[in-house]
């Protein structure tokens, strides 16, 4: 991002921030959708029962642990791709 004027840099940064916010919101709504779908199956009550609350808590923890691990692999792979010429060139 060299060669940008200060105004452009500010514009770029503010767009990146909006994008990150959007990604965070997307992650949040996916997490809600996934853990709801996995944990809630009893519609005889209108409030969460203890079993469901526990399941949601574990679902979030596990999702975050998995997400972190996958993120590490993803970063390693990006780094590796940087240090390696593309095949066939």
């Amino acid at each position, binding site marked *: 991002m060299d060669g940008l004027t200060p105004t452009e840099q500010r514009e770029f940064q*503010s767009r990146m*921030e*909006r994008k*990150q*916010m*959007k*990604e*965070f*919101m*997307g*992650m*949040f*709504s996916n*997490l*809600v*959708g996934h*853990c*709801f*779908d996995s*944990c*809630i*199956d009893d*519609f*005889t*009550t*209108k*409030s*969460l029962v203890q079993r*469901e*609350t526990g399941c*949601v*808590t574990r679902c*979030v*923890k596990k999702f*975050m642990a998995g*997400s*972190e691990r996958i*993120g*590490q692999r*993803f*970063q390693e792979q990006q780094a590796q791709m940087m240090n390696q010429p593309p095949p066939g060139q």
Partner: protein
Amino acid sequence: MSMFGFGKPQPSSAEKIAAAEQEMDLFTDMFNKLQQACMKKCVPKEYREGELNKGEGVCIDRCSSKFFDVQLKISELLQAEAAAKGATGGGFGIGGM
């Protein structure tokens, strides 16, 4: 986002517009997720009738209520997590790797 509270009104109103848009997007997204989740849980896909029957209606009410509970619970868990990680920000998936 909080860093934008300084200078002249014009950039600030562009920011306001962007924030209002994002809030609207989140609402839409959540409504879609809720609808998808509760139609799947409460309404069988055979479509033998066009009306919601009583059981389906009650199921949708309870399902919506539980969906909001899950939403609240998860937002609390994420806030607690963020607090535990301190003011380092992010700390989630791609954003916080």
